[in-house]
C-alpha cells in the first residue's frame, strides 16, 4: 500500500462546510515525503481549515484525505494514532501552563507512546537542545518569552517523531525581534528532510525554504508553484494583488 512514490498527504476534491458556508472548495493537493510547502492567502481564505482537516481537528464534509495511504473518515478507528504522526504548531503556542517545559515535552511520549521515563526525558532534552533552549527545561511556560515558548512548542511536536509537521502562522503572535529565532528552527527542520506544511506570511522563509508555495482565496486553491515562479510570475490576478499587498511593507 505504501509505495515510496505515493504522496504522504493526498487531498482529493476536499470540501468543508460550516453550515451553509463553504470554507474549503474542492481542494486537490498532493504532498510528497520531504516536501516543504508554504500556504498563503488573505485572512479567512481557509488556510487554517485546510491544515486542520489534515490531522482531523476539523472533519471535511466531502472528498478524500489520505495520509500515508490511510484515508481519514468517520470510521478511522484510531485517530489518536494518526495524529501522533502529525506534529502541529499553533499561532498561540498552547503550551500546558501547569507543566514544566520538560513535562510539556514528555507527557505525550509517556501517554501515547508509552515511552519509559528516562528515554522520554532524553528525547525531550535532545529536542530542547535542537531548538537551543536546554537550560529552560525546569521552568514553566509563563517564565519564557514568546519566541522561546514557540520553540518549545515545536520541540514538543518533534518529540513524537512525527512524519509530517503542520504550522499555522507560527510567528504571527510574536514580537518582531523574536520571529527570526523561530524561523531559524523551522529552516533547520526543513534542511533535515521533514515534510512540512506551513501557513505563513514570512515570504523570506517561503523563498529560501519552500519547494512549493500555495495561494488560497475564498476556500479555493488558486495557484501553486515553486517560489521563484510564484513570486516573480504569478499566473492569477488575485495572487499578484495579494503579493503586492503583503510585499509593499
Amino acid at each position, binding site marked *: 500500500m505504501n509505495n515510496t512514490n505515493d504522496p504522504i498527504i493526498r487531498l482529493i476534491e476536499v470540501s468543508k462546510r460550516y453550515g451553509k458556508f463553504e470554507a474549503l472548495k474542492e481542494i486537490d493537493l498532493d504532498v510528497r515525503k520531504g516536501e516543504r510547502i508554504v500556504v498563503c492567502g488573505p485572512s479567512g481564505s481557509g488556510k487554517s481549515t485546510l491544515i486542520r482537516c489534515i490531522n482531523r*481537528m476539523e472533519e471535511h464534509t466531502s472528498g478524500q484525505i489520505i495520509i500515508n495511504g490511510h484515508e481519514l473518515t468517520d470510521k478511522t478507528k484510531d485517530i489518536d494514532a494518526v495524529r501522533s504522526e502529525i506534529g*502541529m504548531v499553533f499561532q498561540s503556542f498552547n503550551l500546558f*501552563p501547569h507543566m514544566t517545559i520538560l513535562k510539556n515535552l514528555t507527557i*505525550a511520549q509517556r501517554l*501515547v507512546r508509552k515511552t519509559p521515563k528516562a528515554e522520554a526525558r532524553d528525547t525531550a532534552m535532545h529536542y530542547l537542545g535542537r531548538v537551543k533552549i536546554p537550560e529552560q527545561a525546569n521552568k514553566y511556560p509563563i517564565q519564557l518569552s514568546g519566541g522561546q515558548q514557540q520553540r518549545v512548542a515545536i520541540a*514538543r511536536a518533534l518529540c513524537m517523531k512525527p512524519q509530517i509537521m503542520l504550522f499555522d502562522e507560527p510567528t504571527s503572535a510574536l514580537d518582531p525581534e523574536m520571529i527570526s529565532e523561530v524561523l531559524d528552527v523551522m529552516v533547520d527542520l526543513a534542511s533535515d528532510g521533514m515534510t512540512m506544511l506551513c501557513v505563513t506570511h514570512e515570504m523570506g522563509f517561503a523563498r529560501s525554504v519552500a519547494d512549493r508555495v500555495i495561494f488560497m482565496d475564498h476556500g479555493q486553491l488558486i495557484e501553486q508553484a515553486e517560489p521563484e515562479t510564484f513570486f516573480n510570475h504569478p499566473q492569477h490576478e488575485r495572487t499578484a494583488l495579494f503579493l503586492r499587498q503583503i510585499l509593499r511593507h
Partner: protein
Amino acid sequence: MSVGIIMDAILRMLHGIGITFGLLGLSLAIGSIIAVLLLLMRISGRWWLSWPAQLYFYIFRGTPILVQIFIIYYGLPQFDWIRDSMFWSVLRDPFGCAIVALSLNVGAYVSEIFRGGVLSVDKGLLEAGAALGISTPQRFIYITAPLAIRISLPAYGNEIISLLKSTALASTITLADMTGIARTIVAETFAPYQIFISLALIYVTFTWIIQRTIRWTEGYLGRFTIR
C-alpha cells in the same frame, strides 16, 4: 453574667467540634465525588445523562437545606421499603441523615463550580493535546482537570465555608454539634445572648482558618500559572 460562664460554655461547645467537622469533612468528600459524577454527566454530550444531572441541580438549588434534612429525617422512614433496605442503617441515624442531606447539596453546588472551571479551560490547550495524539479521557485527566481545579478553587473554598455553617442545621434533628450543644446550654442557663455570641465567634474563627488555608493553597498551585 460572668466571664467564667462564657468560658465554660465555649469549652463545652468545642466538644461538638468532632461532630461539626465530621459533618463537614464527610459531606465535603462524598459531595465532591457526587459533584464529579454529575459534572461528567453534564459534559458527556448525551442528553439522557445531562438532563438528569441538570434536574438534580435545579431541585437542590431550589429547596432549603433545612427542608431537605426534614424530608430525609422525618419523611423517608414512613416508607416500609426504605426501612427494609440497606440504606436504613444510615437513615435511621440523625448523623447519617445529615450527611446524606449535606452531601447531596454539596454535590449539586460543587458540580456547578467544577463545570465553570472546566468550561474556562483554554480550548487551544485541548487542541494541542489532541494534535499530539493524547486521547479524550487523558486530555480530561491531565489537562482539563488540573487547570479547572485551580480555577474553581476560590469558589470551592466559599462552598466549604457555607457548608461549615450549614452543618449547624443538623442540630435541629437532635445532633450535638457545636450549635446543638449551645442550644442545650442555653436551655440550662437562660443566657442565649452570651452563649450564641460565643458560638458565633467560634464559627468566625474556623471560617477564618479555612479561608487562610484555601488562599495559601491557591497561591501554591497557581505559582506558575498566573496569567
